[in-house]
């Protein structure tokens, strides 16, 4: 088809065409309307609501005298709750690191060498059922007298040193998010033509050279997207720190938020924590979407 530039308007163009196209666009938007309305009412409005509320003192937002505007919540966030944010990020970061370490080789082997992929996929859904069951199960394993006790005795470590500790929280969190990491990296890997690896091998590259110089650059988008996704998800969970962590790990922002908001009804402070978590999640989402999801819509 030769693209001849046309000077518009073309004589005799049906004026209906543009109108019909507009009508189609409107029909499309109308079909999206229920989804948009539900999202606006039960996602976007509530998020705006808590942003507003985070600038009011405690629960004065609803007092008859009207809300007391304040920046104190953010001040408190900085002065008193920075360690909570620190722990949250530390746990999420470590869990992401563990997932990267185990997830990349796992995904590679799964995509390239394993024939019983469906069986693996079926069992991989277990972590997705929820961090709650993982934390519960791990707690039982690590408890004094639990199945892991002989192991602890072998290395002469006290059970409780492991049970309520940072490593066990990180371990449980990384089990929960492991499938997400494998999914992202695996999808990226299966889009890489295996003949590229063969070509590299024929050109004399060692396996690790092939991995570092061919596979890693080609799958970087998937790896980054997976890592961001895992990090984002790990920011919000609280079953693992609560059931497996010491007092320090239990300080995660999500749990503190619950205590402040629902138990102590300090809405101002709780929503502030929510806004801080949300800000982190948005940044992560932005980059994650830029790296991976866009391809679905075109």
């Amino acid at each position: 088809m030769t693209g001849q530039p046309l000077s518009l308007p073309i004589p005799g163009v049906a004026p209906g065409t543009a109108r019909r196209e507009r009508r189609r666009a409107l029909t499309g938007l109308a079909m999206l309307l229920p989804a948009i309305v539900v999202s606006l009412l039960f996602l976007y409005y509530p998020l705006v609501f808590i942003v507003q509320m985070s600038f009011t003192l405690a629960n004065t937002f609803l007092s008859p005298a009207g809300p007391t505007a304040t920046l104190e919540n953010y001040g408190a966030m900085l002065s008193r709750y920075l360690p909570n944010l620190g722990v949250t990020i530390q746990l999420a970061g470590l869990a992401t690191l563990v997932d990267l370490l185990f997830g990349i080789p796992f995904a590679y082997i799964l995509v390239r060498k394993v024939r019983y992929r469906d069986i693996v996929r079926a069992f991989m859904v277990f972590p997705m059922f929820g961090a709650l069951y993982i934390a519960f199960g791990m707690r039982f394993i690590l408890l004094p007298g639990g199945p892991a006790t002989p192991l602890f005795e072998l290395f002469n470590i006290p059970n409780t040193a492991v049970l309520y500790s940072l490593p066990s929280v990180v371990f449980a969190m990384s089990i929960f998010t492991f499938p997400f990491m494998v999914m992202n990296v695996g999808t990226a890997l299966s889009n890489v033509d295996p003949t590229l690896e063969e070509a590299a091998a024929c050109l004399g590259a060692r396996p690790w050279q092939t991995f570092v110089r061919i596979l890693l650059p080609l799958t970087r988008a998937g790896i980054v997207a997976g890592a961001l996704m895992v990090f984002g998800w790990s920011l919000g969970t609280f079953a693992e720190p609560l059931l497996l962590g010491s007092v320090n790990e239990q300080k995660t922002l999500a749990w503190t938020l619950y205590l402040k908001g629902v138990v102590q009804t300090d809405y101002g402070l709780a929503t502030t924590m929510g806004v801080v978590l949300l800000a982190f999640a948005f940044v992560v989402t932005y980059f994650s979407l830029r790296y991976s999801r866009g391809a679905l819509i075109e």
Partner: protein
Amino acid sequence: MSTVRLVGITKHYGATVAVQDFNLQVADGELVTLLGPSGCGKTTTLRTVAGLVEPSAGRIWFDDQDVTDLPPRKRNIGFVFQTPALFPHLSVANNIAFGLSVKGAKKDAIGARVDEMLTMVGLAGYGSRLPAQLSGGQQQRVSLARVLATDPRVLLFDEPLSALDRNLRDTLKYSILDLQRRTRKTAIYVTHDQSEAFAISDRIVVMNAGRAEQIGTQTDIYLHPQTPFVAEFIGANNGLTGTVTGTDGAGDEARMVVAADGLTLRARPRPDVRAGDQVLVYLRPENLVVLPDGDGAEYDNVVDGTIDRVIFEGPTAQLRVDVAGRELRADISGSQRLTLIQRQGKVRLGFNDLTMIPAGAALTSAGSESASAAIANAAPGGTEP
């Protein structure tokens, strides 16, 4: 039964023009083929007739009804796609019944019609199978049955055989022609395959770059191409550029003399060509004859050359001859081709029919222009702007 009229159909996507001012009138019961290379706009044109694509400009008429603004479902057309496009989750019978059942036909009426259609396409007893259990050719026959079941006004074919292998294509194209003749449906058939077009068409529209280059019967298109594109697209052709130097002879024997690439050729005169005009001259390889030395009195043109190569292709032999520094191709059939295989050196070629086209005759060929004018004038009731 229906006639189809396309008036000034234009379709552009952004700045890209897919179809440009396309005009065509298809008579009742006629089978017209749109023939052209891929990307020439033939499929887009067909899809505007179906209503699957809205034209940017122009109108489409079925008989006296302007259907331009009707959606496909209200046009009562039968569209056969490149792939059979049978609904994979429905049985063959339910596929054929689909068009009737969405229009709310009675169950037993549908059943009878489905059986009739299955028999018609030679697949009686296959009703309960799923499409995946049929071969490609059978699937395409079911898709034919499916569109015929609704008794459409117009049949539209979008390269229905291109996904099939060669043998199947040959048999199925005659089945399509046969069904179209028996049902006396008006049909528009899109293809890029010349032999398919020549085999089944009443008329052929050769399309290029979104325009109709030439509309005519098989012999018109083959023997009297009106534009360089048609001459080069249909069959192989030796093309030469030259200048008309004068006229030779008189009456029926009159020939125009053309100096082309160092050769002097004689062609039948054309009213739109005068002495001094630049022209394109085409000689079909199959019209060239190898002459015994010293012979050639009965031919308008006789040229001498040197054989470059002889390529034996089975039914024909291709001769590449260097004539005055230019390679001409001659396709030799019959017993002569066998004696030529070993031949080398000088050869004498003779030919009568050669096509002369004015060098300026590009897209605005006289043929399609007058056709479009005739169609525009024939608008019923004077409702056309």
